[in-house]
């Protein structure tokens, strides 16, 4: 079976510095694939390049068999990829409800959008309580729920999640991972970038290690001892 997302030899640079130095990876339809690696390894750069915020210098991104390399972010949303960015990036001065409507910007059909909002409010009851509040008044965990819900409003075939547990309390992190597992059970394909390797390996079917802009390991969660994964995910193999 062909992968839903195929990244081939991707090179993305900031000026002269190459943050991605020929990254290739695949995400199978219906799976949770996890990308682990230390800070500065290129995880967010890969997410931004896939979502169209950054343009790659070389290489390609194929989605559902179609080449989407270098397309604009809104076109990539239209193709069926939604990114939940690091630090969430909700619209702080828009209400929770308006944030959700913004996520459905490219969709037509008012009643379907309304029923999707209704379903998401059931999944995220905290958002229902705060529907009319400005997103900026929400707690970090609630903003993360909102960022996920906003991304789901575009009905993506692939959900990119960049460090969804960043800066959240342990209980909230558990809730986020429970939601990730639920989304997976409902058939959503997820590419997950995480610092929390322990939690990530529990939900993922496949994982990649990225170090200094290159994939250094790829396998199933049992393929490498967890303490080895964690050490390399946090410190990189240079720290042997």
């Amino acid at each position, binding site marked *: 079976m062909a992968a839903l997302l195929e990244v081939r030899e991707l090179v993305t640079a900031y000026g002269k510095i190459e943050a991605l130095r020929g990254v290739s990876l695949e995400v199978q339809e219906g799976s949770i694939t996890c990308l682990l690696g230390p800070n500065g390894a290129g995880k967010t750069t890969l997410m931004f390049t896939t*979502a*169209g*915020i950054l343009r790659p210098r070389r290489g390609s991104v194929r989605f559902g068999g179609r080449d989407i390399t270098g397309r*604009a*972010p*809104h076109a990539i*949303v*239209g193709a069926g990829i*939604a*990114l939940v*960015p690091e630090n969430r*990036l*909700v*619209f*702080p*001065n*828009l209400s929770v409800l*308006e944030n959700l*409507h*913004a*996520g459905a*910007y*490219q969709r037509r059909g008012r009643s379907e959008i309304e029923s999707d909002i209704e379903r998401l409010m059931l999944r995220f009851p905290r958002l229902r309580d705060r529907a009319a509040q400005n997103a*900026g008044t929400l707690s970090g965990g609630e903003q993360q729920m909102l960022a996920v819900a*906003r*991304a789901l409003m*575009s009905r993506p075939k692939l959900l990119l999640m960049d460090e969804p547990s960043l800066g959240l309390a342990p209980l909230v992190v558990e809730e986020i991972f429970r939601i990730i597992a639920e989304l997976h059970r409902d058939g959503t394909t997820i590419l997950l970038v995480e610092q929390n390797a322990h939690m990530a390996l529990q939900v993922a079917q496949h994982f990649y290690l990225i170090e200094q802009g290159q994939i250094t390991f790829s396998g199933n969660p049992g393929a490498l001892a967890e303490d080895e994964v964690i050490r390399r995910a946090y410190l990189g193999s240079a720290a042997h």
Partner: protein
Amino acid sequence: MLLDLLQNTIDGIAAGASYALLAVGFTLIFGVLRRVNLSYGPAIMFGCYAATWLHLNFQSGLMVLGLAAVAGAVLAGAYVERLCFAPHRAGSAIAAMVASFALWMQFEELATLVLPRHVYPFPTLHEGPPLEFFGLTLRIDAIAVLGAAALICALLHGLLHRTRFGLAVRATIENPVAASLAGIDPARVFVLVFALASAIGGIAGFLIVATHGQVTPMLGMWSTLKGLLAMMLGGLGSLPGAIVGGLALGLIEAHSQWFLGPQLRDLVAYLLLFALLAANPAWMTRWTTSRSAS
């Protein structure tokens, strides 16, 4: 004395209504682009000169002149957007501002080439005598300007808060990157907002020249200065602030002209802005900081 104060307040609000419209247009552009468009006023002047040309050559009616002013301002605004702002979207704010200054000069030169005299007459909205009550006078055209300004602000509020396009604009104002991740095309929003702001500026310019009864090439600089001043008084980047700032500027001018004379009138407004910038109260920079923090 009390009567004078009341009369100044009425005059100030009347003048402030058109400043508010200028500031609203400025703020829309600043809000989405985070760029100052110095050519905003000159684009308005271009529209008003187009209307004046129609008036002089064809004696067109007020409706046609108003439409011509709006169409001219939108056309000139689109030209400014393409030349100054589209190429510098991710680049330097200073480069875009300087480029917009260069186009300002173009518009002034073009206007004086087509209509070389310094002053041209412009038909007024209303010819009759002003309303008089309790010793106060109220010009009919001032009421019309105030009504038009209120209507435009109400329509704009509806557009921004009740429509899909408005949601896209407000999302882009908050964070263009996040907006693009939601599926909104910020580049398209930029262009449409520029056109919208230019149209509002065109209406403001038309109302101003129709109140003054004349057009001069100074209109460009005048509109940029008044709009910029009102926008900054209202706290850079907030639409309700722009309306308040415009009305405040009108009131400050009317009262200081009465108490200190016309020579000091403009100075008072600039001194107040200087004092506000020096004191830097939180509401003035609320918008510019909220975006960098997100």
